[in-house]
């Protein structure tokens, strides 16, 4: 089955420290990978995507993600966390031949002041 996995339900990080939210994928063919963020009582906001090209993808709000084919990972990173980054983060993949997003289970990020 084609999917993404987010192994951590919760990630806590101190403000100003680097943050990483993990995602691994399992797809046949080329992976089309995405990160979304959901703030409380809000919809999902697109952060960044990897379709092809450079393995390091830069996105909104200072976030970036590194596509690693050998480790089948697409971890979300930010050099210096802000309290306002606290939210629910979803990794997603588009299945080959389809166009809808298939989401991971989400990781709640808490940035501690």
């Amino acid at each position, binding site marked *: 089955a084609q999917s993404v996995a987010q192994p951590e339900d919760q990630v806590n990080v101190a403000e100003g420290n680097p943050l990483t939210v993990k995602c691994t994928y399992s797809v046949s063919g080329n992976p089309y990978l*995405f990160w979304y963020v959901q703030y409380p009582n809000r919809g999902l906001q*697109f952060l960044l995507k990897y379709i092809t090209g450079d393995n390091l993808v830069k996105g909104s709000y200072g976030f970036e993600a590194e596509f690693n084919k050998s480790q089948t990972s697409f971890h979300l990173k930010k050099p210096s966390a802000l309290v306002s980054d606290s939210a629910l983060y979803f990794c997603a993949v588009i299945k080959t031949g389809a*166009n809808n997003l298939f989401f991971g*289970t989400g990781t709640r990020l808490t940035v501690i002041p």
Partner: protein
Amino acid sequence: DTAVSQTPKYLVTQMGNDKSIKCEQNLGHDTMYWYKQDSKKFLKIMFSYNNKELIINETVPNRFSPKSPDKAHLNLHINSLELGDSAVYFCASSLGRGRYTEAFFGQGTRLTVV
């Protein structure tokens, strides 16, 4: 200008009732979706329409019926509501089939069945 808008934002209703959620996008996208987010925050695709044509219909009870009057609108009608239907329903849109682009989401409709 809201790109994907859905109404209502909150919906509280009794078991057995019929209700609809409306969705509109002004992005000129060809494809629209309905996703369901349960109490554990899991997100699951329910339906997908491309230019008013149904292209995805996941395992969803037939009490749920999407309707797309044009490619800018995708409504969700739910008959005979059950307690287990309580969830947040998100509408989304994207450029369309064969184009691996991001989807844009509405703010969600929190449905509570009592």
